[in-house]
């Protein structure tokens, strides 16, 4: 049964993409949405089927999903749904503006579906090697999406993304090899020696030196995809040049997918080496990411780059939180992953709206949205507030949890600095946001037709984030708790 579901889940988008490739117009939109709906229903069904503590397996354990995987899977589906929902409006405008060629429409939707497929594959596979394959695949496909409109900047961004992504993922391969090698003398030559469930079970017997090396390369490799400083340099380029729905996917989900991989290695490392080694590295690089992101957020001219750097900041925060460990911080991390994905996706979508309306992504150009673009501008302002972590944003709760959790775990300086950096990043966001919303608007193209669907898809996610800041529904609480248990599996 599960085999079928997983099969549908992976094949529907792939086949849909193959069909969509040559098409264009309403038809391709329909095909894409149909294929996605099939996959989405399968994905959500699978995600909700996962019990709190146990796991859902398929293909003889080749596919094995625990609560964390289900969470990532669910987020992927939700964010992808938002992005796909926003795509037609965006793509039509691009076509009308001549930024996209008519032929590219089909390619866009096809690549989009394949990108989603690769992202979905990440939390499914149990084998670290296949996990690596999936992540590499996301790079390849999304690189094509980033450069889909052939402007010089887009090509530059895609090129850098491709090269740096490949290098990073190469290190990830090295990490995988070393993990494998560290297990060989226990498991011998067996094809499931890379199944992280197996690795976890025999972690204490793994070769510690190789394991240490392995985590270092995993940090460098998957850290590149996560966007941890100093491996993040591709991120602002790619996220700002990609079509906005793709940016939403990149910032919302693909970072999380890479983080998921990093978490797997972290767990193995903790099981094999004790918590201090990998945790320290995560905390250090998380802090570094937050610190480096700040100046780029303070002095930023490009709206989407601003959002991209804030993604760097939040990934840093998540890395720190995971490094901190401890129930409170991990609970915060678990919720923060989802909230950031949803908020950031919404922000990129509204940023896309504004960029199209103002014909520019420059912050100096996008001013006075309060009159010119009430819906998208409002969503952007609200989203920035949510991102900044002021009540009733759920991120207020998660940031509180991570900082307090970190300090109670003894990471005083790191957590204190994190709190300061969070505050400063919020200030940067608030200043930019207030200028965007109330700044003196120059000659602005009259507000584009506000369709209710757009208002809904921009407002609803933010409302959810706000609601989650005041109250956690029971099932979600249970799910988060089991995720926390997994994250802290071999913690203290």
């Amino acid at each position: 049964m599960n085999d079928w579901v997983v099969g549908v889940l992976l094949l529907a988008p792939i086949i849909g993409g193959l069909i969509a490739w040559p098409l264009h117009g309403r038809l391709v939109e329909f095909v894409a949405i149909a294929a996605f709906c099939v996959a989405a229903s399968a994905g959500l069904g699978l995600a909700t089927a996962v019990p709190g503590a146990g796991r859902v397996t398929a293909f003889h354990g080749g596919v094995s999903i625990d609560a964390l995987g289900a969470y990532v899977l669910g987020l992927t589906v939700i964010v992808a749904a938002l992005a796909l929902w926003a795509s037609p409006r965006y793509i039509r405008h691009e076509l009308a503006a001549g930024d996209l060629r008519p032929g590219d429409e089909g390619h866009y939707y096809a690549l989009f579906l394949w990108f989603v497929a690769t992202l979905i594959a990440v939390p499914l596979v149990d084998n670290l090697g296949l996990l690596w394959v999936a992540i590499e695949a996301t790079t390849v496909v999304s690189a094509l999406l980033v450069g889909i409109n052939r402007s010089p900047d887009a090509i530059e961004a895609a090129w850098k993304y491709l090269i740096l992504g490949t290098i990073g993922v190469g290190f990830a391969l090295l990490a995988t090899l070393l993990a494998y090698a560290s297990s060989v003398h226990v498991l011998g030559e067996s094809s499931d020696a890379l199944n992280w469930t197996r690795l976890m079970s025999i972690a204490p017997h793994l070769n510690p030196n190789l394991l240490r090396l392995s985590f270092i390369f995993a940090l460098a490799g998957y850290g590149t995809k996560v966007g941890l400083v100093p491996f993040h340099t591709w991120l602002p380029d790619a996220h700002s040049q990609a079509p906005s729905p793709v940016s939403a996917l990149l910032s919302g989900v693909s970072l999380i997918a890479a983080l998921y991989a990093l978490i797997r290695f972290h767990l193995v490392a903790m099981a094999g080496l004790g918590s201090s080694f990998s945790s320290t590295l995560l905390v250090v690089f998380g802090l570094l990411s937050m610190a480096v992101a700040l100046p780029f957020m303070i002095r930023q001219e490009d709206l989407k780059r601003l959002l991209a750097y804030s993604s760097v900041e939040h990934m840093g925060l998540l890395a720190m939180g995971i490094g901190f460990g401890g129930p409170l911080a991990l609970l915060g991390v678990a919720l923060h992953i989802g909230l950031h994905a949803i908020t950031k996706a919404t922000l990129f979508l509204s940023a896309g709206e504004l960029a199209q309306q103002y014909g520019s992504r420059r912050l100096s150009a996008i001013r006075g949205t309060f009159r010119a673009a009430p819906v998208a501008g409002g969503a952007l302002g609200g989203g920035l507030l949510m991102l900044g972590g002021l009540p009733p944003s759920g991120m207020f709760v998660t940031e509180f949890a991570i900082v307090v959790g970190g300090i109670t775990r003894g990471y005083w300086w790191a957590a204190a600095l994190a709190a300061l950096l969070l505050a400063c990043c919020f200030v940067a966001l608030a200043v930019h946001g207030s200028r965007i919303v109330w700044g003196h608007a120059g000659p602005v193209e009259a507000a584009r037709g506000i369709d209710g669907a757009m208002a809904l898809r921009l407002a609803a996610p933010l409302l959810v984030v706000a609601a989650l800041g005041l109250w956690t529904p029971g099932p979600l609480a249970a799910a988060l708790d089991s995720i926390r248990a997994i994250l802290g599996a071999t913690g203290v």
Partner: protein
Amino acid sequence: MTFTAVDAARLLDACSTSIVLIGVLIAGTRSIGRAIWLVAAQAILLSAAVAGVGLATGSNHLLLGSLVTLSSRGIVVPLALGHILRGSPVRQERNPYLGPRLSLIAAIAIVFVAFMAVDSAALGGSLGPVSAPRALPASVAEVLTGLLIAMTRRKGLSIVVGLLVFENGLALTAFSLTYGMPFVVELGATFDLLMVVVVVGVYTRRMLTVFGSLSTDQLRNLRG
């Protein structure tokens, strides 16, 4: 006479060292075309070493792996790159960030560093099927050399060459460190490599059409 583990070890050591040597040579050359063929040569040596280990341990999928390596890294990829190169106006690496001599020296330095930093003894005694003490440090050196090449070149294609050297280093690691990975992973990795090359091809073509050259100097607009 049979092909024993000891012979395999010798072969692996010899191949890996010579691969590193070739890597250094690549770092030292201006001509992109020559670089590509040197990369191909590395791949052939690599597959030979893998085959040797395969014979010694009698594991079939290593032999298969060597075959795959030969075909993909040794033949397909170089051909593809050569095709792209023919399409591009410039075939020489003009004024790189680091001149050929300097980067030759730097490469040698890196090799020394790698051989000093990584010794397989420290990593838990004999690794892999045959004890080839030079294999692991050689592969790390190869990886770093690849990155050095990518770091010091201006032409997009030379950066890709550097990337391939890097990839060869990874493959060398894979085989020197383990019995090779589970076969399915092996396939996936190779497929990904091919995909990368394809996408690179796509983008180099776009770069040619948009910028009229493969120099990365135009690719410096996105800052801050």
